[in-house]
Every structure is written in C-alpha cells, then in structure tokens.
C-alpha cells in the first residue's frame, strides 16, 4: 500500500526532467522530503476526501435526521481527527528535521563557501592547507555520500541557494553567514537555481551540480587546482594578450596569469564547465562568442559590459578561453 501510494506523486511527475525536481531524491534532504511529503499527502488527502464526501452528502444526499446532538458528536470527532492529524504531522516534521541535521555528522564534511552576487555564484572549496583551496564559479562538484557544509554569504542582496534534487534551500544574506548541509546520495547531473528574487536577472542565476564518485571528484579537484595552461599557439596567445590588456582582467581571475579580478566569476577552468553566464548558455564556442560580444543581449542588466573588440579579437579571446579546460 505504502509503495503504491508513493507512486502517485511520482507518476504525476514521470516523463519530466528531474534535473531540478524536489522529488528526485538524489540527496538525503530530498529523500526525506519525499518521505515526509508522502505522509502529508496521505493525511491531507484523507481530510480532503472527508470534506468532499460530507459536502456532497450535505448538498445532494439524505438530510441529517439526528438533530443537533448528532452534529455535535460529529464536530467533536472531526476536531479530534484534526488534532491527531496535526500532532502527527508536527511530530513527523520535527523528527524529520532532526534526522536531517544528524545525517552524516560522523563523517568529515567537505567545506565549501558560496558567495552569491547579482547574478552569479562564487564557489570556494576550503582546505585546511590554503594552497589546496580551490576557486570556481557557477558549478558544484560533490563526491557522492560525503556531507558538504556550505557556508553562505551574499555580496549585494539576498539570494537563496537551492538544489531541489539534493536538499532544501537556504538564504544568503548580506551581513550574515548561513550554512547549509547537503548529503548527496546519487551520482548524476543536477541543476540549482537562486530561489529568492534578487533583481533584474533573478531568472538567470542558476548553476550546475555534478555528484560523482569520490575518485572522479578527486580527479576533478586535482585538475581544477592546476593553473591555466600557457597559450600554445599565436592565435590563442593573441586572445590571452587581449584578455590581459583589456577590461576582462579587471573583473575575472585566471590562475597563473596576472588576471586576478574578483568581481566576476573565476575563469581558470571555464571551458571545463557545462554552462556559462550562471547556467544561462551551454558551454559552446558559439554561445561563448555570443556572450562575450553582447552580454546585455543575452542577460540584460548583467554586470558584464560589452568590451569593444574586432571579430578577429573576439575569435582569439574565445579560442583562448576554450583552452581553459
């Protein structure tokens, strides 16, 4: 019975992309959400059925023949039912919350700091050895099974970090540091998105989440810790030089180069990401060129200005960025 009921909401959602679905259950939080939601659906479903049944009877069925005493008895029963239901749901909700807080507390967590800005996510993997810390943007790679402690800060307005497939959301508030604990339990690609309205481009503030095996994660971490490769040929070198000598380098950082701006996303390994412009465009050469040439056309109001360049220069910069794997 329980299993059958579980299928009801899932069946309704079947056939849809689960990348950003709460019922995906790819993290412990989302898994608990499914369990708790099922309980709530059963209790509220019974209540709703009772109301509809009573309403139908009252409008078209036989009249009450028991007078006021019968109504009073029913009212007492109904009140009792509501009270029991509420106590059950409040208790279950409280226990579920406690369970989520305890989950994974026996394992060493991965520590990640998130800095949200209009309209992108700065990500820093913290390590006790600062030289091993890692900076990236708009993407999270997480090893499956290991708890992640996210420290949440906002640089401008309130944002909310939310990976529906893994866990509930938590706000990033200027002047406060919040934290969010996530335990990913299933390997896959997911999508997160800002959940608190944060201004003009709130709709385009997403990020990619990759949950992978500990080995794959370690390999990714190692690759990301490398500085950017030196430009290999003159075309790429021209792109590199343009980047370093123009406004690009004022806002963006590329490891191993003079560019160390922090007002925009770190681009050291931008070409290894799945998307650009905070989950707005796929990481392809065409999208990259379109974005660089006209950021305001893709994402009106984005903080990135169009930097004047010739078509050749645009090709060169795109070629250079493409080497930043």
């Amino acid at each position, binding site marked *: 019975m329980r299993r059958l009921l579980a299928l009801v909401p899932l069946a309704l959602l079947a056939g849809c992309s689960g990348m950003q679905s709460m019922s995906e259950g790819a993290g412990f*939080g989302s898994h608990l959400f499914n369990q708790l939601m099922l309980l709530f659906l059963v209790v509220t479903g019974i209540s709703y059925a009772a109301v509809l049944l009573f309403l139908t009877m009252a409008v078209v069925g036989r009249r*009450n023949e028991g007078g*006021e005493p019968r109504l009073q008895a029913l009212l007492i029963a109904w009140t009792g039912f*509501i009270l029991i239901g509420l106590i059950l749901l409040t208790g279950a909700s409280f226990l579920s919350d406690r369970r989520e807080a305890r989950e994974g507390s026996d394992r060493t967590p991965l520590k990640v700091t998130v800095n949200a800005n209009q309209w992108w996510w700065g990500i820093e993997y913290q390590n006790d050895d600062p030289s091993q810390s890692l900076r990236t943007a708009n993407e999270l790679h997480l090893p499956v099974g290991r708890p992640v402690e996210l420290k949440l800060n906002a640089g401008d307005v309130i944002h909310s970090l939310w990976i529906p497939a893994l866990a509930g959301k938590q706000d990033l*508030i*200027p002047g406060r540091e919040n934290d969010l604990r996530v335990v990913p339990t299933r390997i896959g690609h997911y999508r997160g998105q800002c959940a*608190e309205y944060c201004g003009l481009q709130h709709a385009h503030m997403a990020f990619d989440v990759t949950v992978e095996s500990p080995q794959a994660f370690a390999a990714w971490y190692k690759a990301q810790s490398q500085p950017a490769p030196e430009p290999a040929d003159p075309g790429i070198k021209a792109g590199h030089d343009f980047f370093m000598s123009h406004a690009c380098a004022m806002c963006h950082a590329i490891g191993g180069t003079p560019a160390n701006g922090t007002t925009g996303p770190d681009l050291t390994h931008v070409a290894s990401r799945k998307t650009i412009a905070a989950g707005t465009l796929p990481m392809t050469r065409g999208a990259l060129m379109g974005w660089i040439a006209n950021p305001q056309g893709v994402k009106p109001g984005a903080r990135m200005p169009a930097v004047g360049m010739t078509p050749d220069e645009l090709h060169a910069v795109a070629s250079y960025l493409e080497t930043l794997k």
Partner: protein
Amino acid sequence: MTATEHPADVPRDGPELDGPELDRILSETWGDKPGLIGWLTTVDHKRVGKRYIFTAIGFLLLGGILALIMRLQLARPDSGLITADRYNQIFTMHGSTMMFLFAVPVMEAFGVYLVPLMVGTRAISFPRLNAFSYWLYLCGGIMLWVAFLRDVGPDIGWFAYTPLSGPEFSPGKRADFWAQLITFTEVAALAVAVEIVATILKQRAPGMRLDRIPLFVWGMLVTAFMVIFSMPAVTLASSFLLSDRLVGTQFYNATEGGSALLWQHLFWFFGHPEVYIIFLPGLGFVSAIVETFCKRPVFAYPIMVAALVTTGLLAFGLWVHHMFATGLPRLGYAFYTAASMSIALPSGVQIFCWIATMWDSRPRMEVPMWWVVGFIITFVIGGLTGVMVASVPLDLELHDTYFIVAHFHYTLIGGAVFPLLGAITYWFPKITGRMMGDRLGKVAFGFVFAGFHLTFMPMHFTGLLGMPRRVYTYPAGMGWSALNLTSTIGAFVMALGVVLFLANLVRSLGNGAIAGDNPWGAASLEWATTSPPRPYNFAHIPAVTSHTPLWEESLPVFSGLRVEHRELVLTTVVEALPDVRDPSPTPSIWPLLAALATTGLFIWSIFSPWALVWGAIPVGIALTLWFWPKSSPDTHQEPVIE
C-alpha cells in the same frame, strides 16, 4: 420601546411621526446635496462603501490584466514577449495591486457598506474619517498606477526585501512609490478599522447583545482589530525604508550596523495577519450566505465566533514561517511550525460547521451558494497545502516556488474572492434594488471555477519540478513548459468568467428583476429596510430579540430619535442596552481636501524630506477647518431613558 423625558418641541420618530412624512424629514436630514457638491462632500457610508467597492474592483481588473500578461510571457520557455525589466515591474504591481489596492480595501468596503446596516444604525461612526479614508486610498492607487504607466513602477516584489529595495540596489524612485503606496493604504485601512470597531461596539441596535451579532460582523470586528495591531508594523517598516532611501539612515544596511532581516520581521509581522485580514471577511460572507439559503442559523455559533477570534490571535504568531530559509535558530522554528499548523483547527471547524448547517437543512442552491460550494472545494486544498508549507523540511524545498504561488492563490482566490463574488451576487439586490441574472451567474461561476483550477492546479507540479517564482523566463527541457501553457490557458478561461460576471452585473443594473426589501428571505437587519436603503438606513431603529431578528414573528422598533438633526443611539458594549444619543457629522468637503493635502505631502516626501515640514502646513489647515468647532445646541450627548 420609546425614549421618554425629552423636550416635547423637538420632532422625533415614533407612532405620531411615521410613513411618508418621516421619510421626507429624515431624507432631508440625512441626504446629501444634489449634484457634484453632494458627490464630493458625502459622508454616507453607503455611497462611500459603493465607491470603495467599485474602485477596488477596478483595481482587481487592472491586477488581473497584469496576471494575463505574465501568463502570456510564461506560456512558453525563453519567451521574449516582454523584457525582464517590465516583467519584474508587472509581477510587483500585480501583487501590490491585489493585496493593497484590491483585497484589503474591498473587504473593508463591504464592511463600510454592510456593518452599519447589519447592526441596525443610521450611519457609520466617524463618517468624515470614512470619506477621508476613501479619497486617500484612491489617490494612493492612482499614484502607483501613474508611476507604473510612466515606467517608474516598483520592481522589487510585493514584499520588497531589503537590501534589494534599498538605496544601493534600487536607485531611482521606483521603490519609493511602492513604499509610499504602503503609507497611503495603511492610513486608509487603519481609519476604516477604527470606524468599524467603534460602530460594532457602540452603535448596535438595542438588544443586539454580543451573542446576537451576525457572523459577518464578528468577522469584520476581528479583522478590524487585526488591522489595528498589524498595520503599524509595516508602516514603521516602510518609513524606515523611505528614510534609508531619502536621508541616508541605515536601518537595513548590514555594513553600517543595520539588519537586512529586520525588514522581513517587521513586514511579515504585518504580512501574515494581512492574509487573514483578507480572508476573515470572506468567511463572514460564507456564514451570511449559508445561513440565508439554509434558512437556519449557522451550526455552533459560539464555536464559529471562537474560531474567528482564535484565527485572529494565532495569525500574529506565525510570521516566521515566511522566514524558514533565512537561517534563524532551527529549534525556534518548531514553535512557528506548530503555530502555523494549528490554524488548520479553527479553519477546519468552520468548514465543518458550514457543511453541517447545509446537511441539517434543505439548502436552496442559488448562485451565492454555488460560490460557497466552490469556496469549500477550493479553499480546503489551499488550507491543506498550507499545512504542508508549515513544516520546516517541506517548506525549505517548497518555499519561493510555484507550489507557493499555487498555495496562496488557492487560499486567497478560493478563500476570499469566491466568497466575494458570492457576496456581490447576494447583496447586489440590497445595494441596487435589482437581482443579478441567475443563468449568466451560473455560467460565470462555471468559467471562473474551472479556469481557476486549470490555472493553479498545474502550478503545484511546476513548483515540485523546481520552478522558482518571480522568474521572467525559464529554459526549455525542465519539464515546466506544458504545465505553464496549461496555466496560461486556464488564466484566460478564468478571465472570461470574470468578464461574464461583470457583464451580468452591468446588465442587471438596468434589467434585473426588482428585488424588494428581502428577496432571499434572510434574517439579518440589512434586509429589514428598503433596497437600496434610504440615506438614513432605518425609519425606526430596530430592536433585536434574537440572533435571527427577521425570522421572528415581528421586528419591534425603538423610536424617539431626533429627526431634524443627525442623531444615533449608542448602546452598551456587551448587552447593547441604549446608552446615550449621539450626533452624527454632516457632509463636508474637508475630508476630500485633507486627503488631497495628505496626498501632496506623501508624494512630495518621495522627493524631499522637507515635504514633511512644508507639506504639513496644508494638512494642518485642512484638519483644523475640518474639526473647527461649531456651536450648536443640538450637539451634546443626551442620556436615553427607557
């Protein structure tokens, strides 16, 4: 009953002064001057109430048009129909218009129109304040909409979180117009709330003890108290915001020792009660309709009243459930979860009592009853999803998604707008003297009901699939596209239903069947007078002996009030025993002029802090002349002796 021991030379209503002669004198005393002057100076709660209702419905239509534009934009992924900037203004305007310019005012408007009639008095208390309130509300609404049409509409969401709404991230004047709209509507709403409390507590017909008050009036009383206790919080919040923006205070600036979360606490301490401010009058409509069409008092009256009061009290203990994701202490959340869930108890009990009333009688299924049935079917879903979002682990996923959008439209449209449309159909004959068309009424109900569910039911699933609210567009391939298209189609079906409802309303104004005093055979006092009521409401003040006065064998009256001056009888708070006679103010142009002066001050203060100094002068002059004492031998209170 008569009041005796009065000077014999003053004409008073009674057996010796009745019929057409009494009507002539009372109409002279309580009527307005003809023409434009009368229209501008009136303090008649029925004229002001009608204008309030008419204006609020106008804003409902404007807000609805914005909703349709949003639905068109969201009908397909990556739509470029409107820009991000316009969309953000539109959803802010939709929320602000619906909450501040439609929902709260329309409920108060029905209170202004109906409460004095239902408690059996000649006028609302503080009638000039009432007129002032309307003009101020109208000016505030016009200000916001003119700003929007000139592309300075707010784009910060209807709850305007700081620091996004602060000086750094919302330069220009958009956010100021929003914050000042709050000031306008709060002053207007507080004024009405005070009038309603005073009218209900002191002007009830003799004999209408607290346990004989119609449930709608109880709903309005609780609502008015909630307005009085909750609105100051948001007025404070928006004043802080304005001063942060205008004179560089730092209330909400974390880097200068302020707090971004302070705004949320203050706003939601108002914002959650606000939902019940909209919804309790809706419950009152339902109680009135159910009682009439079941020809039976609503089952368990004391429990119904207790449920209203409980809801009003609990409403102040739940604001934190809007802030579960802000990182407040986790254990403290448990209290707000329990408080939020416990709202289900009074709501569930009331639902039971209405259905039990129907079951224990033979309900006549006229159009208002269809709206009540639609209300129960719809609102209960909203209430149950409300139980879900009260749970912290569920809310952390559901918060700020389309699931929430679905949830609050089920509670607000299902819980307040459906009863409102039923109430319009129900009281239309009282207000206009004509019945609304029956068949068109049912067709309109069908379209609105079906369109509503087609729009908002899919949003639960759009939300579960991860679509956040307040996004101007979304990518394809997320599983949201078909659901969004369905919602858009539903929105237009619902809009068609609203158009049919209004067409019925307009047609019935001229062609509807003549209603008579009490077309539905209702029990409460507003049906004891003519339809539409005369300016003085009742020729003789009714005396109440039961909870359902018009279902008694006869309606005794209380006579002896002066007829050549506006005079009311005040009664005691609990027992409604006649206490004193009290004069009631006459028409005046000063409420309008004071409202215009206040409007000048409010709008000017968007641009300069000096407005508070220089702008206060015209306001002071207007208020002084409004309250200028007039020496008249007839303005003192006189004890009533039975």
